[in-house]
């Protein structure tokens, strides 16, 4: 067993236990979601990467994919549960047209996932990936999708800030889970963010759920607001929400949603 893999798995397992303690100790369902949506995916991602490092390069891609899956799906799952318990159910918000990468980029991405799942880069695995990627790409194409453009430099800057904030938020949740009860003083804030495209707003909403001590409850693309549940509100966390959105808006350029374009 490699030392790095062992250390990563130990750290991740400890974070997962802290998340479970948070779920047991926090006073209400929305606060408990913070523990389940932040500390748990961070912990499990570390366990996965550690396991991959131990199993060797052939399996590393697979475990990194699973780790990525946990990090990407945790805010979506938390949002689905958060909507069920948020105090104000809210009105029906118009759904803006969906955005998607170009077909070629999607097929290439799906083929890469396929090859990583197999764990070996051969002509056969690559061909299988292209066939599966094309099939999925054709089946999931909607006629009304907007093209999704990504600025690589800005995207990298977002990912760097995102990872730093994720470490901080995990520490905040861990301190709240293990520390005195006064560290949990939940409140709901409606935060207005700057201009940006709809994909940027969606990306920010999901990133917010993973990073500062906040959890997105509602997104309003017309008013450009994010309704967030904060585990312990302070100025820094409110600023972090606006800052995260500014970074995703730079990474995902596009026109903001308008009345006519909603369906």
């Amino acid at each position, binding site marked *: *067993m490699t030392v790095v893999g062992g250390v990563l798995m130990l750290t991740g*397992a400890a974070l997962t236990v802290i998340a479970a303690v948070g779920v047991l100790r926090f006073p209400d369902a929305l606060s408990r979601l913070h523990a389940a949506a932040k500390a748990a995916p961070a912990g499990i991602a570390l366990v996965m990467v550690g396991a*991959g490092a131990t*199993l060797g390069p052939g399996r590393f891609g697979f475990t990194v994919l699973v780790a990525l899956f*946990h990090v990407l799906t945790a805010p979506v799952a938390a949002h689905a549960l958060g909507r069920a*318990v948020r105090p104000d159910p809210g009105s029906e918000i118009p759904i803006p047209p969906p955005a998607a990468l170009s077909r070629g980029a999607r097929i290439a991405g799906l083929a890469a996932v396929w090859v990583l799942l197999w764990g070996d880069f051969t002509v056969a695995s690559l061909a299988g990936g292209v066939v599966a990627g094309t099939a999925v790409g054709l089946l999931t194409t909607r006629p009304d999708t907007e093209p999704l453009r990504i600025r690589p430099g800005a995207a990298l800057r977002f990912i760097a800030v995102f990872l730093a904030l994720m470490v901080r938020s995990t520490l905040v949740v861990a301190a709240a889970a293990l520390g005195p009860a006064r560290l949990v003083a939940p409140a709901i804030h409606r935060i207005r963010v700057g201009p940006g495209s709809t994909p940027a707003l969606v990306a920010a909403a999901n990133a917010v759920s993973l990073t500062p001590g906040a959890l997105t409850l509602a997104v309003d693309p017309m008013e450009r607001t994010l309704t967030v549940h904060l585990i312990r509100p302070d100025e820094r966390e409110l600023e972090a929400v606006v800052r995260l959105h500014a970074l995703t808006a730079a990474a995902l350029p596009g026109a903001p949603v308008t009345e006519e374009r909603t369906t």
Partner: protein
Amino acid sequence: MTAVTTITLGLLAAAIGISLGAALRGPTSTDRMLAVDLLLVALSGGLAAAAAFTGRVALLPVVLSVSLVAFVGTVVVGRTLERERRR
């Protein structure tokens, strides 16, 4: 069994036990579902760690399946609970 193996698997087992307790306690369906979600997430981590410690790579597809069930199940239950509340 090295110390790292024992502690890692012990911690993940503790996380599964605690989330099982939280799922039994509730009190609302949302609390139970988020605890079950955490249980499955911790289980997928435990299976991955077990695969790493024993070298049984056949466990890895199980890790992926448990992760998928955790996510899809949580979203479906969340949406159902929301729809029931709106009625």
